[in-house]
């Protein structure tokens, strides 16, 4: 395979075969439709199948299989790759495009309202994820609730797409999209323009407006100035519309979005809170779901009961107060220790917490590993018996539960956590290095935050080992 190297990295779309695969609407469309079929199938299984979670495909397909593929493969390697074939906004896309396969992007349908400016950030998604987080033990174990939630997401995406322009739902509302976008900052796969100068000169901006070749960026991103992965859904529309062949899909060095120079911090405040919430959730789930403390499991499961309110309080308190306070204190200490005057405290805080992107991603990979290794067998048996009605479609219904390599699991989890700690250390130092001139003060300034990262890894390690 011939691949071209550019300043951004290896240009995958320069390969004629890959380029054709990416530009053609068919591969993406087929994957989306397959995913949608699986999604609808899971909803039906949840509605009509057994209420026993691990015997129902709604649970095993979504929370074991899909979650594992998403967190272990797609997000770490492909960033928002999932978003490019996600079935949730598919119906909304078709509505806005006036057809299942319409490639003419000049006349979008729907009301096309613009999302209120004050809400163009991740705060709604932060709130939504927190809400799912405190109720997740029920969602995760109850097929009916899972099915209703998935159906609710489908309906909401369709309604939002009918009223608002483009992928407003994905960018500002989808609770999954928020964290995929944040962690995609650490992914090596990216869409970039080859030469921003060409874009600046090009008046018609087909990539943003849409043309007869494709739709204007559904994610409301202007590729010409795109520098970070978070908001780009990798939908490939701009690859299709750009008449000057100036758009490329590249493999770049991972996390370079977080360490590139510039006066603006590498993540915004809403993104840092996304990172705090995700880290808090990883800690809570690791302790509650896989720890030996049964009272906490009952509390997390008993939505509406007094212990559940306690659980919800601990969860939100950890995510919104304790972890942010830990990193704020670390940043305050570091800024003083390093004698940093050139940037404000907030800018410095955001730079130091950018290491939470790889750290949190590692925490989630470690957590998700246990799902696959321990409960993967349930996926195989429920494939043949999706509703738990003693069917045997593919002859695998009798596959009994058997953990895979359970002896290796803690070691694998620790390896991932150690890589995450090393990676976050490096990202933290590089992200603040633009603000600090000497090597000594750079180290002093980053030590408190690195210490906080280490404390988080020690807690996770204590839970897993």
């Amino acid at each position, binding site marked *: 395979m011939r691949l071209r190297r550019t300043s951004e990295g290896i240009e995958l779309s320069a390969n004629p075969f890959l380029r054709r695969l990416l530009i053609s609407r068919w591969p993406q469309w087929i994957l989306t439709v397959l995913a949608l079929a699986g999604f609808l199938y899971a909803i039906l299984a949840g509605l009509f199948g057994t209420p026993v979670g691990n015997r129902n495909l709604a649970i095993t397909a979504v929370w074991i299989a899909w979650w594992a593929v998403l967190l272990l493969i797609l997000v770490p390697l492909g960033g928002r790759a999932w978003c490019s074939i996600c079935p949730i906004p598919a119906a909304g896309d078709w509505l806005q495009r006036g057809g299942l396969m319409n490639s003419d992007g000049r006349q979008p349908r729907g009301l096309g309202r613009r999302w209120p400016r004050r809400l163009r950030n991740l705060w709604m998604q932060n709130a939504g994820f927190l809400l799912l987080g405190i109720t997740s033990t029920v969602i995760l174990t109850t097929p009916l609730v899972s099915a209703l939630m998935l159906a609710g997401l489908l309906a909401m995406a369709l309604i939002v797409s009918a009223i608002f322009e483009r992928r407003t739902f994905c960018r500002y509302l989808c609770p999954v999209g928020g964290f995929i976008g944040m962690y995609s900052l650490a992914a090596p796969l990216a869409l970039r323009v080859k030469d921003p100068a060409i874009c600046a000169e090009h008046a018609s901006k087909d990539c943003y407006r849409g043309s007869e070749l494709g739709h204007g960026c559904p994610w409301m991103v202007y590729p010409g100035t795109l520098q970070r992965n978070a908001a780009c859904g990798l939908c490939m529309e701009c690859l299709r519309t750009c008449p000057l062949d100036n758009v490329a899909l590249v493999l770049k060095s991972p996390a370079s979005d977080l360490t590139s120079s510039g006066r603006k911090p590498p993540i915004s405040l809403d993104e840092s809170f996304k990172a705090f919430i995700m880290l808090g959730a990883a800690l809570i789930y690791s302790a509650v779901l896989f720890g030996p403390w049964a009272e906490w499991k009952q509390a997390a*499961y008993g939505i509406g009961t007094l212990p559940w309110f306690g659980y919800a309080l601990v969860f939100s308190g950890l995510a919104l107060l304790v972890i942010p306070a830990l990193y704020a204190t670390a940043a305050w200490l570091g800024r003083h220790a390093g004698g940093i005057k050139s940037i404000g405290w907030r800018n410095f805080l955001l730079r130091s917490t950018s290491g939470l992107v790889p750290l949190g991603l590692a925490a989630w990979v470690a957590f998700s590993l246990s799902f696959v290794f321990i409960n993967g067998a349930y996926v195989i048996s429920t494939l043949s018996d999706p509703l738990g009605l003693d069917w045997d479609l593919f002859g695998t219904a009798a596959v009994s539960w058997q953990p895979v390599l359970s*002896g290796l699991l*803690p*070691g694998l989890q620790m390896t991932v956590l150690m890589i995450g700690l090393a990676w976050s250390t490096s990202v933290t130092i590089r992200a603040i290095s633009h603000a600090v001139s000497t090597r000594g003060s750079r180290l002093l300034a980053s030590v408190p935050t690195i210490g906080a990262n280490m404390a988080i890894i020690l807690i996770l390690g204590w839970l897993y*080992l």
Partner: protein
Amino acid sequence: MKQRMLAVILVAAAASLAIVPAPSPSDDGAEQVVPISASQYAFDPAEITVQAGQRMILEISSTDVVHGIYVDGYELQAIADVGRIQTLEFKADSPGTFTFRCSVTCGPLHPFMVGKLHVVPDYKWVRLIGGSALAVIAGMIWSQKRETQANI
């Protein structure tokens, strides 16, 4: 390039330090009998600590519905029935913490019905702190490499 190599080696060392099991002391012939009662969704006791090298006899029973027990790492399995005691005999010869979990679907929280078997001494904190310290140093070295590259 050298720095990059060094960083990778350090991360590998960090991971191995965290993973490599502590040395197992020789068999002292001691035996420990632990009755475990399973109920939705807990084991009682939920945490068991045992000296490495000892023989374990787990006496498993249930107080409500049929449960099971599966010991990670040791890969042992038994059924926990109401009013009947099943025993699981093994030698706790590898130190570390091992999750034991319910192996028979027993209700919504079944996948999360777990307990922990601590085979000590496993020097867990020494390994954890040492490992993360190495990982931090590796990260620091890696970040230096980026800078030198950027300065060229």
